[in-house]
């Protein structure tokens, strides 16, 4: 039986660009592309046992994760799926610029202070 399922994907703690793929349980690619909005609406026609949803954040600061959703056993036509970003480990060089907001003039001398967990 073919059914149409509407999947709503919400990204937390905030919306970040990510590469999204959705495959059927047998591996058939159903959706592939970059998503930028805080919610993604998809329509899936499938009679297979389930879907594998993989989210790969564009920023390497966050890890890739995959999830399994059983579509065919869904009691309703709309599935809500919430993806939570998890920071990846590692250290790397970050480059910064600091300029005058009104004139574009490079700030002569300053200290940027990075500390603690950022606010969501």
């Amino acid at each position: 039986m073919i059914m149409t399922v509407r999947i709503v994907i919400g990204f937390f703690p905030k919306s970040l660009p990510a590469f999204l793929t959705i495959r059927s349980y047998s591996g058939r690619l159903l959706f592939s592309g970059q998503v930028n909005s805080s919610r993604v609406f998809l329509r899936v026609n499938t009679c297979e046992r389930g879907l594998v949803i993989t989210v790969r954040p564009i920023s390497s600061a966050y890890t890739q994760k995959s999830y399994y959703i059983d579509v065919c056993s869904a009691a309703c036509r709309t599935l809500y799926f919430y993806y939570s970003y998890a920071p990846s480990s590692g250290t790397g060089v970050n480059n910064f610029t600091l300029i005058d907001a009104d004139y574009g003039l490079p700030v002569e001398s300053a200290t940027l202070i990075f500390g603690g967990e950022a606010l969501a």
Partner: protein
Amino acid sequence: MANYNVQITNGVGSQAMKNGNYAVSVTANGYDATTLQPTTYTAAQGGAGAFTLRANGTLTLTFNETGEEGGAPITSGTVVMTDGTGTTHYGQPVAIGANGEAVFNNVPFSAETPYVLYFTQLETDEAHNIHVGVITVNMNAATLTQYVLNSPLAEQSFTLTDETYTGLPVAAATLAFTGE
């Protein structure tokens, strides 16, 4: 989560950082630290962060015939903030008003270590010579006025005489000079 202090010199800096989310603040000579944007950053290998700051000083450049207070002002023109060579322009040119003044708002200043700013005059009015070279300002107060010399054009003298009767002055005539 580690903390980092990143030194910025002439607008750039870099730091090896652990990946993750950070709150960001700043200390900067001449600028209002509360205006930093953005105030959060996500660090990653090869990450890049672009930040801005605003200042709240006001500079008035007054262009006149003496380069000092009280001189007869020019009546129009334009001037722009530049680097020390006058080659790179920062922001939009500012118009010189009928009173000879050009006002630059939101410029950095510091009483302890004056912020050095540079300007280049782009245009002057038809009766004066433009200031040649870079104008240097030591911005050491929140409000500052600096005078810039635009000398009056040199007066030229002309004669018009009859070609046939050498030396006979032409009674009345108009010489028209068209600029290049």
